[in-house]
């Protein structure tokens, strides 16, 4: 079991969702985050105050998948989140020791396989 954490651009989310759907990865958790990286910073001005905004809006996707799905998931994300400009984001693959489906108590692979 792996937890795949991907940071992507907000406007790529819908395409990534669709692509994951196509590779049968149907469960995931999404959060709004702010990223800091090599992307150009924006300057904002409010009255006399000028600030450099070091953070840009990103979306983080957490997907728990069993081993056979890892490559497909990564590929689906990379292909659909890529624009080629700096700031496209990163994917982290973390090892997972256990997954539990709260509703049924099922564990591991069974827990991430969607109900039909």
């Amino acid at each position, binding site marked *: 079991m792996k937890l795949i954490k991907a940071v992507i651009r907000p406007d790529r989310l819908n395409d990534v969702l669709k692509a994951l*759907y196509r590779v049968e990865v149907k469960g995931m958790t*999404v959060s*709004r985050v702010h990223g800091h990286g090599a992307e150009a910073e924006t300057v904002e001005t409010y009255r006399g105050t000028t600030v450099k905004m070091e953070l840009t809006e990103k979306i983080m996707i957490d997907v728990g998948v069993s081993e056979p799905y890892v490559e497909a998931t990564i590929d689906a994300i990379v292909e659909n989140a890529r624009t080629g400009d700096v700031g496209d984001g990163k994917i982290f693959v973390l090892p997972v020791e256990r997954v539990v489906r709260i509703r049924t108590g099922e564990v591991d692979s069974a827990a991430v396989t969607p109900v039909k």
Partner: protein
Amino acid sequence: MISAPDTAWVLISTALVLLMTPALAFFYGGLVRSKNALNTMMMSFIAMSVAGVLWPLVGYSLAFGEGNSFIGDFSMVLMNGVDLEANGTIPHMLFFAFQGTFAIITAALVSGAVVGRMAFPAYMAFIGAWLVLVYAPVTHWVWGGGWVDHTLGALDFAGGAVVHVNAGAAALVAAYVLGPRKDYGRQALLPHNVPFVLLGAGLLWFGWFGFNGGSALAADGIAVLAFTNTMLAPAATLLVWAILDLMNTKRVTAVGLATGVVVGLVSITPAAGFVSPVSALVIGALAAVPSYFALEWRARTRLDDSLDVFAAHGLGGIVGAILTGVFAQTSLGSPAAGLVEGNPGQVLSQALSVIAVFAYSGILTVGILKAIGLVLPLRVDDKQERQGLDLANHGEEAYSTGEGALLLLDDEAVGVFDMDPDHDKPSRFVTTSEEAR
């Protein structure tokens, strides 16, 4: 004879009172969770439609038609005879419009007791029926030549009984009939947007100058008196409220302050044109106390009058109505003297009018709700309640980020007006299995 300045003042007053309904939408809407924000606001807004249409159809006629002591008649149905001729010093049609805005806001006020659980179609039916069966007759009693005015001689300058006691009673029983929200008492109801509550309170105050000041139906001294009292009474309420808050929680709360504004405004409503400004300060100050403690106490009961319509409008209206009987001065133009001018009987008249309105409104409201309950579900189901009524009743979110929202389009409708053909077409998200490969 029609007076142009009176017309000008009542015109703008009518606009101010109409603004109170959106203001109420914000006052109420800010107090609920975000998942119910739109539903709560819609309950006020839809009153502008339901009451706005029923008033010319039949409501006005039942309220102000000659009829008998208890109800008007059908003589002015569909605004028959409501023309530009003088009614007092303003055109009859303006009086109709001014009164119409009162009908709208009164119906909307009740909604605060049923937020977070009432099904919207049932709510629409309810306020329609309530307007015709409760609001119109009660208005007739007090302002349409009915018994509260003529027989009882009770005073109600701008609607302490007609509007606030009436709505407060309906709210109380509606909360009882519907029952509490499922998570009531377990999950705290925190206001999702207190600035909206303050916005609502600020706009309500603004609009209330039309409500009370306009009720003079002329740009005269009575209007000035009512106006000034509408400015001073809530100021006093606020100060007492702030002191109670400081004593109780050591902090002056914003939601408390917003509530205090409304309580002060409600309390001066029946008295506005009949009492002196100093009396207005006293009325405002006194009115803070019962409502403050009623709010504290209500939250500890099983009575889910969620936004405390009874504590704010019901009690504020009762206190105001009684104190009108205390402070009314014929020297200021009040048609009846109050206790301060040596007429203790007026206090009794006032109390009786309150009881009558309260009882009638309470009983009829139960009846209307039970009757509607036979036809339509009064409440949404538990799952919808958990999910929030914005989604369940309206299919919308108040604050949407658009993430994860996939467009649904009818393929056949696309392209009819396709003016930029080489641009890729809006695509329907396809989930069929062949596509998924």
